[in-house]
Structures are given as structure tokens and as C-alpha cells.
């Protein structure tokens, strides 16, 4: 069984191992030892913080195998994308142009550097060691973050988003970057990502990126085609987030043009379809029809989430969990849990 739990100091070596294999698709994943240490410390402090207004907190979770305690993946969620800074994205606006004299009517897309997403909560750093072989636990890792947010809504904003890796070729060259970012940064895409550590809330972005809108028709076709396109390695997270209720809309990443998926929390299944139930252990007949649920213990400290097979909850007042699930969740009969259908 896999458990999602907040990161702990002891996880640092395991995260360093993960960081080594974390592909170029996940620029937000901390890669250097000092970056990992900072992320872990910040997460521990964030879980411990008494939050009134969401600000700089960032919650880092790991996916742990209950069998051998190995770490199979990690993911994070930030209270606000801007943290102490401003989060930058390109907003893809449409300008409608009509001239009666010339009998012309068409639309022009314009990219504007914007800070609209600064106060939204951001999902980031999602990485599973073996994506191909992984099963339901990837969904557990991705969605546990939102279940945590549903259990502790005061720690997060009204809106959530996730920025997915954009198209790059085998050499890590991004057509969107070549046409746009390179003119201002004067360096390769991967070099820029390494320098900013995948962040989009750094002062240097406002120093370097275009202040004026970019007219999309002026970009090379290759760069236009890359707008909003997700990297093949981002397809799994894209699918999971879409199932959760996220949708791509007018925002794209300022570096590689990758899609930014966004949702109001009411549109997310973890918020709208999750239910609170009391844990009730009982032996059920083997032929009872069962369904997969994401279940978390609804605690801010000592948060745990697992996938559990249990009888359908629609008309039940309590949830029947296996002893193993109860142990992993650290709950006993009568405790409240938050569950949502997988």
C-alpha cells in the first residue's frame, strides 16, 4: 500500500535520488542538495504554521510504500503561487479587429506578461519515479494535495492552477523559448530554467521579460504551434488534473509556452465531491461490492492519504476501512476521514 504524507527531514537523501532522475519535464522539482533542504524545511514550517491568510507556505508531500518505506514520488502545493513575489504567466488575449472600410474582420492573439495568478494556489513538483510502471498511486500522489487543501481550505486560495511542461525536442530546445525568451535572456532554455530553478516569481523575470504584449502572428509558426502544448512526459499529470476538474484556459508558461491548467476550487472533485465519514471497522462479507476511494485523515499535522477499497459511501454514514488502511492513516474507529471516489 502507498501512503502520501508530508515530507520529513529523513526524506532528504531519498529526494536527492529522485531529483537525479527527475526529468527535464519537471523544472519545479528541487534538484540541488541545498534546494532540497530548503524545500523540506519550508514544508515542515508550513505544516506547523498557524495560517490565517495563505501566503508563503508550501507543502511538500512524498509517496511512500508501506511495504519497504521507499519513496516513489513527491509533489507539492503552494498556498500562493507568488509566495513573497509575483508569479508571472503569459495571458493569451484575443483582440478583435474590424474595419468596415476594408471589410476585414479577424482576431489577433496577444500574449501579455501578467501577474494574475499570483494569489492562486499552485500545484508543482509532481514527480513519480517510474511513471510507466506506476498505477493508481500516481493519482493518489497528485490528488492527495487537493484533498489536503479540501481538509484545510483556510490554508489555500479560492483558485488553483498547475503549470505543465511545454514542448521541447530531444536536446531540450524549446521553439517557444527560441522565439521569445531567448531574445531577452540571451541563453539556452535549459540554462535559464536551471538558473531560476523552475520558479516564475523571481524579480529577474520582470527585469528581463517583455513589458509590452507580444503579437502572436509575429512569432514563427513553430513557436505558435508550441503554445499550450504539453510535453509528452506531462501527459499523465495533464490527464489526472483534467479528471480532477482542471482546465487549460488563457494562461501559458512564459518560458516554454506550456499549458497552465486552472480551476476554481468548487470545480475540483476533491472539494465538491469529497465527503466526511467516521471510520468504522467491521468485517464485511467478501461479496460486498467495493469501490476505490482516496481517503485522508483530515488532519493538518500528521496528514496521511491512501487509496482504499471499500463499500460504496453514498448512503453510508461511516466508512469501512481495512486494518492496514487504518494503520497507514493513523486512525481508529470513530475518527473522521475525508474521502473522494478515485
Amino acid at each position, binding site marked *: 500500500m502507498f501512503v502520501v504524507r508530508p515530507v520529513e527531514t529523513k526524506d532528504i537523501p531519498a529526494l536527492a535520488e529522485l531529483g537525479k532522475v527527475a526529468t527535464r519535464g519537471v523544472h519545479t522539482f528541487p534538484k540541488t542538495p541545498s534546494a532540497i533542504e530548503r524545500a523540506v524545511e519550508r514544508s515542515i514550517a508550513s505544516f506547523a504554521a498557524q495560517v490565517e491568510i495563505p501566503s508563503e507556505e508550501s507543502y511538500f508531500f512524498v509517496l511512500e510504500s508501506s511495504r519497504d518505506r521507499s519513496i516513489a514520488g513527491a509533489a507539492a502545493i503552494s498556498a500562493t503561487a507568488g509566495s513573497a513575489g509575483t508569479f508571472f504567466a503569459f495571458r493569451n488575449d484575443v483582440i478583435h479587429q474590424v474595419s468596415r472600410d476594408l471589410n476585414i474582420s479577424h482576431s489577433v492573439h496577444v500574449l501579455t506578461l501578467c501577474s494574475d495568478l499570483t494569489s492562486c494556489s499552485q500545484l508543482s513538483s509532481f514527480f513519480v519515479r517510474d511513471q510507466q510502471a506506476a498505477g493508481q498511486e500516481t493519482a493518489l500522489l497528485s490528488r492527495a494535495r487537493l484533498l489536503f487543501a479540501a481538509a484545510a481550505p483556510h490554508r489555500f486560495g479560492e483558485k488553483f492552477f498547475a503549470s505543465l511542461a511545454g514542448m521541447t525536442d530531444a536536446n531540450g530546445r524549446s521553439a517557444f523559448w527560441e522565439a521569445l525568451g531567448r531574445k531577452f535572456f540571451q541563453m539556452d532554455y535549459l540554462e535559464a530554467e536551471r538558473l531560476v530553478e523552475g520558479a516564475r516569481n523571481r524579480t529577474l523575470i520582470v527585469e528581463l521579460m517583455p513589458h509590452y504584449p*507580444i503579437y502572436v502572428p*509575429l512569432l514563427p509558426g513553430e513557436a505558435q504551434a508550441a503554445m499550450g502544448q504539453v510535453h509528452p512526459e506531462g501527459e499523465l499529470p495533464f490527464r489526472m488534473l483534467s479528471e480532477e476538474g482542471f482546465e487549460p484556459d488563457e494562461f501559458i508558461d512564459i518560458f516554454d509556452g506550456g499549458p497552465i491548467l486552472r480551476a476554481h476550487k468548487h470545480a475540483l472533485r476533491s472539494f465538491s465531491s469529497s465527503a466526511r465519514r467516521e471510520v468504522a471497522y467491521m468485517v464485511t462479507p467478501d461479496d460486498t461490492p467495493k469501490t476505490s476511494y482516496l481517503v485522508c485523515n483530515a488532519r493538518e499535522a500528521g496528514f496521511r492519504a491512501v487509496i482504499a477499497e471499500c463499500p460504496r459511501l453514498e448512503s453510508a454514514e461511516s466508512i469501512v476501512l481495512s486494518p492496514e488502511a487504518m494503520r497507514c492513516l493513523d486512525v481508529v474507529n470513530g475518527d473522521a476521514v475525508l474521502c473522494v471516489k478515485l
Partner: protein
Amino acid sequence: MLVVRAIQERDLDGLMELARQTGDGMTTLKPDRKVLGKRVEVACASFAEQIAPPQRDYVFVMEDTEAGRLAGVCAIKSAVGLDEPFYNYRIGTLVHSSNELKVFSRMETLYLSNDLTGCSELCSLFLHPEYRKGHNGRLLSKSRFLFIAQFPHLFEQKLIAELRGFQHSDGRSPFWEGLGRHFFKIDFDRADDMTGMGKKSFIAELMPRHPLYVAYLPQEAQDVIGRVHVDTVPARRLLESEGMYYEGYVDIFDAGPVLQARISELRSLRESALALVDPAPAASAAGEPFLVSSTVLQDFRVIVSHAGGGPNVSDRIGLSGAEQALLACAAGGPVRTMSLNPKKPNHA
């Protein structure tokens, strides 16, 4: 003999004939009798000072007095952009710099501007192909500088001239292909025609309103910003020798340069001078060519003379009887003179 003079009502037929010769690319001189008739009317009223200075349009024709035909035309508009917006791109610079990354990017930008609103404009210059020789081109173009030197109070402080931008031999404008076409979805000629016809509102409707980074344009389009059409290279050199210069304003369609100058900085303001027509000229060898003009607004006339004479007010200039007739002036009367060619710079 050739004389450049203020246009008159009777010149409309000759002007139509000239307009038919212009071919494409002269938006302000289309062979449309109604449009040209109106223009002649305004020009005559301008010379007669019957309309307010900002509305004036001084049109000059070059007449071949022997053949009795018009050889060329040119004009000065008192002020542009007062009836409808006058658009240009101003080339600006934006620096994007990060200390942290040690990156310093200097980006050129194009700002859609109406900065030149109210400037006086040199325009509508056309010389019949048969007359493109000798001093004729310079006489036609430079006559306007003498006019300005004689009547500087009629003009705004700043003078501009829009020059035709670079085009391939097949008429394609790389700048238009790289920029305008994306927003207009029509050919350059058609867009240019529309502006010539005064239908300029579509510019505001369709042109990008935000500043543009030049680096986003195709290299070919970037390369022609501020470059003139091959045929316009001599005209550019001529205007520059009279004190006009390129200061980063270009046409929004073909990126041709706008040359500009303060009126007070023009060579004609510094070097031209009044002289009296000598009643008893001493016979002398032909000297260097001079532009000589009359000083009457309503019947302003300019010729090229080799009669010599100096650029000092007290000077006398020995014009022949024929030259006096061309200028409609008499011995003892005042004329304005300026050497046709700027003096070579001193290499001290």
C-alpha cells in the same frame, strides 16, 4: 527654359497629364480630375492667403516655357495630421537587464505615434522622365527650400519628408510582409491606396496599438527599417544635403524613413540671401549654378542661373532679360539666391 512656379488654376490639365505618368507608388498624385482639381483650388487659395496657414497646401509646378508644358510638380503641406491622424513608427530602445543573471538586452521597439502631427511636410515630388537630367531634379526639389526661406513665418517649426521605403523589384515590401500583412490581410498596394484616398481610420482599427519589439520581426523586415527604395536614394541624399536628417521615425507600412529638420536649421535659412537684380550687369563668364527666386508669395518663381553673384544682401545679381522674365521681376527688384549645391565641407 524651366521655371518652378506657384500652381495656377489653368495648370489642371497639365497636372492630370503628369499624374498619368507617375505609375504606382504616388498616393498623393493619382490621375483623378476631381481630387486634383480640389487640390489645385486649395493650392491657389493658399498662395492667395485666403485660407488659414495650417490648412495651406503650396503646390508648385515646373514649366517648360518653350514647350509650353509641365515637366514636374512638388508641394509643401503647412501642417500634417490636423484633419486625420498622421501615423508613424518611432524607433525606441528598451533595455532589459538583470544584475543577478548578468544579462543586458538592448531591444529596439516600434511605437505607433502621432508625434509628427502639425509638422510641415515636403511631398508630392514628381519629375517627368524626359526631364530627369542636369539640374532639373535639384531645381524642382530645392525650390521649396527657397520658398520656406523667403516665408519662414508660414511654416511650423519642424519640416518633414516621408520617403518611399525599400521594396523588392517585384514590388514586395519585406516590412509589410513581416508586419502589416498579419494585421491587414491585404496587399501593400491596396493598404497604401486606402491611405492615399484619405481612408485612414482603418489604421487605428487594425494596426497593433502596443509597442512592438523589432527582434520579433523576420530578419528581412528588420533589415529594411529606415531604408529607402532604390529609386529614392538620390532624393534622400538631396534632402540630407539641405539639412534634413533621419531621426528614427518610419512609415508604418513600408518602414521608409521620415527625414526631418527644424526650419531654422535648413541650409536655405542659413545660406540663402536677398539680392537685387543688377540693371547693368557686367559681362562675365558663367559661374557656378545658383537658385534664384522671386519674393512674391502669390506668384513665387524659381530658376537656376549661372549668372553668378554673391550670397550677400547688398549683392547685385546680373540676370539676363530672359531670366528676369521667367522670374517676373525687373531690374532693381529683389530676388533670393542660394548656391544650387551645398559648399563642400572644409577639410581643414
